[in-house]
């Protein structure tokens, strides 16, 4: 089997496939390819897909149909037009015991009063709208701040827990290593002390023997020597 065939099989069947084993024993290049294939498969299995961030999907694809509730877009404009007409013709709709009545125009004083009231109402509405907008913005900012704070806190807690667990494992390993080492050292010291005691004992017995020998020797021969 040629190297080309073997390399195809290495990827398709796996680097440990029996059909390529004999070739790999005698071919250094193909062994390298097999090792690379093994590494790449393992490395690619470790990849975890990243979620896609927001992107402009509307820029691609078929044109989007217009919103079905198109009348809703025109509703505010129509309401404005109706109000303008009502104001321009000074129209007044009223109901009494005789039924509904529609009246156009007004006295001069009434008209001036109405205009002042309308101006005041508009100003009130604008002020109210501004207040609501400010309130909503503040509320959103506050919510955002709270979310952000909670998220940061959660991140710190998770990281702290993760770090703590890792450190606890390290400490346990360190303590075990130190204990083993201490026991070994103690055994070594005991052994050496025992050796010293034995040596001391041996020295003492030798000295006794020497003293006995000296004592048993005749004085003349001792003086000659």
């Amino acid at each position, binding site marked *: 089997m040629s190297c080309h065939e073997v390399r195809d099989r290495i990827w398709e069947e796996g680097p440990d496939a029996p059909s390529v084993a004999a070739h790999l024993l005698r071919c250094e290049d193909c062994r390298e390819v097999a090792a690379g294939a093994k590494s790449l498969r393992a490395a690619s299995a470790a990849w975890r897909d990243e979620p*896609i961030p927001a992107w*402009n*999907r509307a820029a*691609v694809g078929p044109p989007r149909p217009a919103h079905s509730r198109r009348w809703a877009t025109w509703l505010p404009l129509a309401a404005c037009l109706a109000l303008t007409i009502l104001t321009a013709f000074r129209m007044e709709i009223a109901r009494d015991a005789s039924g509904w009545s529609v009246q156009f125009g007004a006295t001069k004083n009434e008209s001036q009063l109405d205009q002042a009231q309308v101006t005041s109402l508009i100003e009130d509405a604008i002020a109210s709208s501004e207040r609501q907008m400010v309130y909503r913005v503040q509320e959103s900012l506050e919510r955002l701040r709270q979310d952000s704070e909670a998220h940061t806190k959660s991140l710190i807690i998770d990281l702290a827990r993760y770090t703590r667990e890792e450190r606890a494992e390290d400490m346990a390993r360190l303590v075990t290593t130190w204990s083993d080492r201490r026991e070994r050292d103690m055994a070594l010291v005991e052994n050496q002390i025992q050796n010293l005691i034995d040596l001391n004992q041996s020295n003492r017995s030798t000295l006794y023997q020497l003293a006995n020998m000296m004592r048993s020797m005749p004085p003349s021969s001792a003086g000659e020597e």
Partner: protein
Amino acid sequence: MIGSANDMSLVQAALAGDTKAWDRLLACYERPIYNFALRTVGHHDDALDLVQETFLSVYRNLHRFSGKSSFKTWLYTIASRRTVDLFRRRKPTESLDDSDQPMDVHLSTDAARREESPVTALLRHETNRHLLRLLRQLSDEERMVVELKCFGEMTFDEMETALQISANTLKSRFYGALRKMKAMPEVAHVVS
């Protein structure tokens, strides 16, 4: 569901102007294509540009999709061609070394979405960053072949059609990349 028959019906519906069908196709394939782009170009912003260019090209050529190959293979063909265009456009001095920062930005986006815990996101991010560093040591051509073969699961014949490069050249690049990876100490780190 990603499947040939289902894809074909979605393609036909999208061609008829059905926006929901097109949205479903996007939903199925935008994440795999984004990850494909991230691994080949190694840069978050370039990857997003590639996603947009790929799907724009897909929509413009949707009427040419005959169903002879799977939609996934056809999509990867377009994505790989757009990536090769990007490699050509990219200046020789530009490198992938600045990929750390965009990935960090992306990580915070994920965390904000709360799709997963921050620690899981961090671990995923770190693992992926090591693999990106590893792939960065291959040439653009080698990285493309490794991507299509290993992650895209394409055959050399399909890659020949997609990249318009002979299968023998592609094999030579692929096995050359494997021999390089054998010699890389970073592989052990990624695998561990």
